[in-house]
């Protein structure tokens, strides 16, 4: 009973508080509490979206991501530390464990201070490579802000990112298999260490759109990890600054909007897919739902319900144009790979379905839906079913096969002939008188 109550309370809390689909406890790791005010607009924005913010310094003893093996926070926002590392409770291992347990992380780096080795070794594990120079910054001599960085050219002005591929949903518009760059540097940017004496054009590690200023990683368990190249972009002063590109007009930045989208995505407010009911059954009426066993050559129906979380509620998920949600019917390799079509739509979800005939091969098959797209949480569903052979009474009867009539006729003619022969034989038996004569002879 108490359990029930607790559950109920949890549900209520969730309903009241969390806008994120995966909890509202957000830990902000910030070394210097005085810098908190630098980002006040961001905090206000996050709090207005229902997050419980906790501020901790990496040096603090109280800081712990886990308690009794469970996550204490749902999300983590790490602002660049000035010290060498993130302290004993935020080692790369802890951070990976946090991701392993479905926590989401937004990591901001800064050009002002050198990136700590702990962070770079963490990023290398995730296949994100920082410049070998710890304090390199991206500069661009064509798209800089003439107002604030007329000399250094290290304040970059970028257009809002478009979508990654035409068939990928764009969450950041108006924005490796697991890794997706959200914001790429303009083609004219390059990495440059301002502290080095001689700027050398040959020593550039990456240029142009090889540089990712904001990259996102979604682990296999859909935990999200975003690296923001510049923490300054989140500062209040850039939320509503006016900038001017060389030769351009003076405009105001949209950093606030971008930060909102970025945090919303990272903390699973957008791009979260949820699989509802999965049903498969024979294509007859009143068939048993989700049977464990099918027969070869059965007409089968498969249905999957998918919804998408958009900021505060689940909405029906629509597959982007040019993309499709696929169903595989596999044993070792797919025997069917079918596009699932939307069948019907409920208030919060779309039901996709397909109908097919099970292959003429018995074995242990599985219905698989494997939908992994950048910026969307992964759908990986696998439902095992057995496909059996024909039972002894499920074959066509012999008389129903026209080719077998010859044999059946042969069979019955032999039986009939034999019976006729017996009758004739018995009828034409010699009389007992003849026998008697033989005996006397």
């Amino acid at each position, binding site marked *: 009973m108490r359990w029930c109550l607790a559950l109920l309370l949890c549900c209520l809390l969730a309903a009241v508080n969390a806008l994120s689909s995966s909890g509202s406890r957000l830990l902000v790791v910030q070394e210097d509490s005085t810098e908190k005010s630098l980002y006040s607009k961001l905090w206000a924005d996050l709090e207005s979206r229902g997050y419980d913010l906790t501020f901790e310094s990496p040096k603090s003893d109280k800081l712990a991501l886990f308690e009794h093996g469970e996550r204490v926070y749902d999300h983590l926002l790490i602002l660049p530390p000035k010290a060498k590392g993130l302290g004993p409770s935020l080692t790369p291992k802890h951070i990976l464990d946090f991701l392993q347990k479905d926590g989401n992380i937004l990591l901001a780096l800064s050009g002002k201070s050198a990136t700590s080795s702990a962070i770079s070794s963490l990023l290398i594990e995730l296949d994100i490579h920082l410049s070998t120079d710890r304090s390199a910054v991206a500069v661009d001599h064509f798209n800089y802000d003439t107002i604030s960085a007329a000399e250094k050219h290290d304040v970059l002005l970028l257009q809002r990112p478009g979508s990654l591929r035409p068939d990928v949903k764009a969450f950041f518009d108006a924005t490796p298999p697991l890794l997706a760059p959200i914001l790429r540097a303009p083609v004219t940017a390059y990495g440059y260490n301002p502290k080095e004496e001689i700027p050398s054009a040959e020593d550039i590690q990456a240029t142009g759109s090889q540089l990712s200023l904001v990259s996102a990683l979604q682990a296999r368990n859909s935990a999200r990890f975003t690296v923001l190249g510049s923490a300054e972009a989140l500062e209040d002063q850039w939320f509503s600054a006016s900038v001017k590109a060389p030769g351009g007009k003076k405009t105001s930045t949209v950093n606030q909007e971008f930060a909102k989208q970025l945090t919303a995505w990272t903390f699973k407010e957008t791009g979260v897919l949820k699989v509802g009911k999965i049903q498969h059954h024979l294509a007859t009426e009143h068939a048993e739902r989700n049977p464990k066993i099918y027969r070869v050559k059965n007409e089968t129906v498969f249905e999957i319900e998918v919804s998408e979380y958009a900021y505060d509620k689940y909405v029906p998920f629509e597959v982007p144009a040019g993309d499709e949600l696929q169903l595989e019917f596999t044993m070792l390799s797919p025997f069917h790979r079918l596009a699932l079509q939307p069948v019907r739509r409920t208030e919060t979800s779309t039901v996709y379905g397909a109908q097919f005939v099970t292959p003429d091969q018995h074995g242990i098959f599985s219905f698989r839906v494997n939908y992994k797209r950048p910026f969307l949480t992964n759908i990986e569903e696998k439902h095992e079913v057995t496909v059996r052979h024909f039972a*002894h009474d499920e074959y066509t009867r012999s008389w129903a096969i026209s080719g077998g009539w010859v044999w059946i006729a042969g069979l019955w003619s032999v039986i009939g002939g034999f019976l006729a022969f017996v009758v004739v034989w018995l009828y034409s038996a010699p009389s007992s008188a003849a026998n008697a004569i033989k005996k006397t002879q």
Partner: protein
Amino acid sequence: MAQSSLDALLKGSSGRNTRGLLRILILCTIAAAAVSSRLFSVIRFESIIHEFDPWFNFRATKYLVQNGFYSFWDWFDDRTWHPLGRVTGGTLYPGLMVTSGVIYHILRFLTIPVDIRNVCVLLAPGFSGLTALAMYLLTGEMAPSPSAGLLAAAFIGIVPGYISRSVAGSYDNEAIAIFLLVFTFFLWIKAIKNGSIMWGALTALFYGYMVSAWGGYVFITNLIPLHVFVLLCMGRYSSRMYISYTTWYALGTLGSMQIPFVGFLPIRNSDHMSALGVFGLIQLVAFADFIRSFLPGKQFQKLLTYMVFLTFGLAFTGLIALSATGVIAPWSGRFYSLWDTNYAKIHIPIIASVSEHQPTAWPAFFFDLNFLIWLFPAGVFVCFQKLKDEHVFVVIYSVLASYFAGVMVRLMLTLTPIVCVAAALALSCILDNFLVMSTPKGAAQAKANGNESKSLRSGRNPLVGIYSYFSKAVVTGSVTIYLLMFVAHCTWVTSNAYSSPSVVLASRLPDGSQFIIDDYREAYYWLRQNTPDNAKIMSWWDYGYQIGGMADRPTLVDNNTWNNTHIATVGKAMSSREEVSYPILRQHDVDYVLVVFGGLLGYSGDDLNKFLWMVRISEGIWPDEVSERAFFTARGEYRVDDQATPTMRNSLMYKLSYHNYQSLFPPGQAMDRVRGSKLPTETPQLNTLEEAFTSENWIIRIYKVKDLDNFGRDHSNAVAFDKGLKKKRAAKKRGPPILRTE
């Protein structure tokens, strides 16, 4: 007074009744002895199913009892051969399971609440009692004296060659098949003696039962036609033979085709062609016999010659044409390996890898048959002396079975019945002569005359030879001693060699007390209790049935070795590097890998000792990827210590066997007690699997297959990171820039 009452019991019609009663009593005693000598394993260990195949039979029986006959018939087993599954109902011999199912239901009907396991455990001993009865009947057909039958019954009851396959718990097809074999032969002898359709039909009925119970039915299928053929060649054609053979063949073939696993084999498979051929031949002979009664001798001779050439020519070309076009299946591999013992080793490693398919060692004959083996030729000789139709049968059977028993260890089982028959014939011949034979009438009369005429002492017939009490006493005494020694030997062999369940191992502690090693069951129950219901277990095929039966988890391969490629896949996964194995494991949905490792205890039947077979079998399918040579050192040695080849040390099997094994020993002193070698100091590094369970004596080791890394890393990198090693940066530090001047 006592004398007269004994006389009343032993003479006349009441004497016949008394002897009948005695015979029944003796047979019952023999049956009881046969059953009880097979109970050693239950007493020593417990009522448990033994070895490997019986576990499948047991599981199938449980399925039959739970789901009824028809769903058993149509059983698609999705817990073996993952992900292929097995059409089990159509690929097994159902006789055994149906028999115990029927017994179970009868007992239930009689309101005796018995567990199906106990029915299965005790089925083989029960049927061995019946075998003794059938043996009595069969031998009784060979000799007029009932003593031969009783002796044969006693022999088959306790002979180790048969006990080896029928101790309590050895719930295998052979458990009932030997009874059926002997009884079918009895019915066949009966049929050919009487020329009766009834006996022929009964033979066919029991032949059908035999077909449903054991693949060894092919032995009957070939032996009976051979018997008929030999009799035909001896010119002993008779209408009795015609009637019994045609009845048996027609009904028996129809009956055997009702078993789904056999299906159309009797008319398509080469193994069955001799029966069909003899069936045709006997028609021709009958026809010729018919013609002869109408034709004069000379013309008939000519006709016969032409007909013989014509038919043989036609039959031979027909057979070749049908074999070439594939209508008749070619001889199976097991058949070839019967003729050429090296055939399997070269062509079919999977057959050669089974220990019971190896040629028999000579001492095994004495071990399994004791003094019967040297009475056996004498018995065959006795048969030659009489050489009626049934004795020809014994001779043919002995010749064939002796050869086959020499080729394959397991075929000792088919030799045993005929050895018992022949030995009983020889022994009863001796005993009858020496115990029963009284001084012949002529001699007695002469003696009487001599007494009357009071002639010289030297003129009397001296009481020497087989008529003297001395020779009788010596012969019967020595035979009795032999028989007693036989009983002692049988009991000893049964209790020491054949009563181990091999699921539970027994060893002796230094103080002589018994020490039970129960690692197998420990591990299987761990699987049963700690893994999800459909966790797929990969192991070498030897353990498939046991995992299915005891752990109740799906397996990739098992002892029903119908799919060589699938077995080779498992062999490849075991013998390759982790990087190669892991995709195979993922593709086959493997959750756990189970290996048997005897290094700690000195248990020699472990997977590393079978490893070369895995390599060979997978090399047969992927000669480019797996090479047996790479597992041997340059000097051709199979080593596991630090001299082992890199291929060996990187193979999954090696890693799984020795993972963490070094931690049991002080540094640098790890020993493998099976292969008697010192192991390398550092333990093999395992990346894609993690240890889940190791049994008490390290015999069974179970590993869990890791999921793909959550962050898309290599498993080796992930493991290195977890160990605290830093990843090297991919980019090298370049030197200072140099100004290029051109």
